[in-house]
């Protein structure tokens, strides 16, 4: 257990929102699904403290970037499904390109000339 913890990577500040938006850009999902998707897609490197997902979802919803509705999960329990709104999609595009620029810049600094 302790070993595994070292392998985990803390998220860069401000990137959680982008990851959520990206995740939702493919599919409508509930909270657990989003967390699970991020974990799996990053080969379990990106470790979201799962609870912090929910305030982020609320915040995005308040900003009108995502919307939600209630439905039923596979095991037939009441679940809230989130989807990207048009504003969310636009926001995702902006975040992606600015993030790409950031990564690019950092990479150039870090790679010896």
């Amino acid at each position, binding site marked *: 257990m302790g070993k595994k913890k070292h392998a985990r990577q803390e998220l860069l500040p401000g990137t959680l929102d982008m990851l959520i938006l990206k995740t939702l850009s493919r599919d409508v999902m*509930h*909270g*657990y699904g989003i*967390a*699970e998707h991020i974990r799996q897609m990053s080969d379990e490197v990106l470790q979201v*403290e*799962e*609870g*912090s997902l*929910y*305030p982020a979802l*609320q*915040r995005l919803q*308040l*900003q*009108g970037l995502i919307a939600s509705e*209630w439905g039923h*999960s596979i*095991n037939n*329990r*009441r*679940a*809230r499904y989130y989807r990207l709104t048009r504003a969310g999609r636009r926001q995702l595009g902006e975040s992606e390109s600015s993030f790409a620029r950031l990564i690019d810049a950092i990479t150039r600094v870090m790679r010896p000339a």
Partner: protein
Amino acid sequence: MDRLGDSLRTTFRRILLWLRRGRLDDDLRDEVGLHLELRRQALIDAGMDAQEAAAQAHRMFGNATAIREETREMWGFPSIDTLVQDVRYGARLLRRSPTVTIASIVSLAIGIGFSAGVFSLADVILLQYLPVQAPHELLVFQWRSGPRYPFSSLSGTSWGDDTTQRSTSFSSEALHRSRLQARDVVEVFGFAGLDRVSLGVDGIAELGEATGVSGNYFSVLGLVPAQGRLLVESDDRAEAPPAAVITESLWKRRFNSSPDAIGRTLVVNATPFTVVGVAPPSFRGTGQVDDSTDVFVPLAYKRQIFPDRGNPADPNDWWVLMMGRLKAGSNPELARARLDAILKQTVRAARPDTPDPDLPSVEALPGGRGQAQVRDHMREPLKMMSIVVAIVLLVGCANVANLLLARGRARARELSVRIALGAPRRRIVRQLLTEGMILAACGSGLGLLGARWIASALLPALHTGPDALTITTSLNLRLVAFVAALASVCVVFFALVPALRSTDASLVQGLHEAGRGSATGHRRRGLSATLVISQITLSMVLVATALLLVRSVRQLQQVDLGFDPSRVLTFKLDPGLNGYKEERVVDVYSRILERLRTAPGVEQATLSNQTLVSNSANVIVAARTDEPVVDRASVDRPAFTDSHLAWRLAIDSHFFETMGIRIDRGRAVDDRDNRASQPVAVVNYALARQLFNTDDVVGRRFRTESRSGPPLYEIIGVCTDAVYSSLREAKTPTMYVAYRQHGAGPMTLEVRTAGDPAAFAPTAREIVRSVDPNLSMYRVRTQEQQIAASVSRERLFATLAAWLGGVALTLSAIGLYALLAYMVALRTGEIGIRMALGADRGAVRWMIVRQSLLVAVCGVVFGIAVSAAGTDLLRALLFNVEPRDVATLALSAAIIFVVTAIAGYIPAQRASRVDPIIALRAE
């Protein structure tokens, strides 16, 4: 633009979320529950055992409570949430100390209630606009002239001094011309209170008030009828079928608010009018605030309603009031100048010999509130009332401030702990202010409930006229806004200062302070002491005022009347309203008096043209025949008038017996004195000496200057001095003249009974009806009630001041008690040491009582200074009492000392019972 839209949308979403936050909480719990369940399931599927899986799921999720908290914060307006939290917390704390809370709320409710009551009166009397279209466009016209009158008779209001006359009455000629010739700048309309009329419906007559209006009156005001139609131009002609518009109150009273009233007949005096409509409910005419009208009739019908009052079209008879609505593009000065020219023209035409400087000039005043002279009368008493209630409100606020301050001390430790735990000071001040606002809100609510009742109780103090003033005050937006503003000011006064003070203490000190007279402790006590001293100062002012007013009323009640008011019933009759000619009126009076005199239980009966002690009198100029006539325009005129005033009362036979006034020389007026015989007068000693410097005046003659009555009188008797119009004017030079020689208008009948005079009223009513069924009695009172009513304003002010003085004093006593009790608690240790070192209980007790006396002395000294500064306001209300009356001030001071001593004794007693051992152990 886009950002604004975004933020609006976000705000909207937040409001929705906040409103649904209970639901959202449940949703979030479900969501988190599902998450944990799915994770647990996933872990079990991966081979973990069930118990371990649940724990691991929780670990992976993190602190669920903190996360829910964080989410919830995002939903709400943090300010709303904290406000709600503050209010809840505040309410809980307030509930925990009910005595302080109730005392504070009651203090505020009294102060705010009285302020709101006075405000709603001021609102109706001084501020409210007429309920008509665009009232700010209206103008009221009046005129000003030199000392020479530009008319031969005037009815309405006139006022002025020796050099100028002012009035709002114009001739109908002036109205007619103004309507025609000023049309392009101002739409002029006219109206006139036609006074008491008899109103007959289905053969039953009642007295009421009628207002005559010009044909354009309702259309210029822009009013809409409640029923039927309003009067129009074509109604205002003498040959038009008589049409009347009734007010809502008459409609309700006489027609049961039935729509069938339209088309029915209303007999005004002797003229049958057809009711064509009902005026809008809130409209009570454009006259004085105390006017209450029952019916509007066309001005053209004045002559027919009052055939005996001369020709209304006479340009020398001024009786109609003028207002106007400005035309678009015009201005008040333009309208004034035009009407000024028109008025001068009509006066020149009617009185060609008037020199130019004596021509009246027109003044235009804002007319949105209607005619305003009565309002001016009420301004002074309103001011006085406002001051008194402001004092009570201040004392109340000071009290609440003190209570909160004391509680702030008790909470010092709690507040320090909260500050130590990181609560910003701002947050705590806000918490304390919220508590203040809760108190103010409760106090305002109670105060608002009481305001209307208080307003109607205070109303009689504003108005001294013969009839009760009916003003309806209502709970309107202005009143609520006023109370809210007042409450906010109060909160700042009583809550902000204690809040700042309570949070001022440095952390360490607050946690350590056992309050052994540290520097801050002194400062806070200083603030409390200042508050208590100002309370006592204000209480002293009120108590002294109340005592002065009470003494003044006592003085008034002890005035030697010079007649005997006991067992006398008075009532008024006005047979002239039925259209009777003078001889018939005299005949009706004679027959009624005859039957009254022979009725069982009646000792004597008479009549007079004024009710005694009703604050109204007929004052004229009387002079010896050998004295030169002093012209009105002469500079000597004012001095001449002042030294030759005579109060004239027209009476019938048996007046002196009925009222118990002694005739010392000559004879009384009797039935021999009629139209055909020499005009006679009985004078009192005061008039005899004023005219002839001797009591031996029977048989002498004197002349009078008056627009009515005979110019020359022969003195037939001398009577003792008696009060005529007012208790404040004892022994006025008075002449009693025969009413048959003077004109028989409305009269007051006086009946001296053997038993209870009030019990005789039904019999009197029967007798009046048996003589003439069309006659109605009005203003039925015993003479003693009449006298009491004549000083009702003084009495009401005295009662008000006494009550409020008592309230203020009680509040101050509570404040002082709280302060001393706190000081005793604070000094328990010190007292313990003193007693351990041998101080006896008496010395300890004295130590505390001395404190309270010191505060009282300061309060009394300041109070005397403040009262002395405010005496001019009071002087007008006082009778035979000097505002700086030493005995009264001494008595007030004594009352203050006694009350403060009592307030101080209880804490002193407690201090003297301190057990040194317990006190020292507590250290």
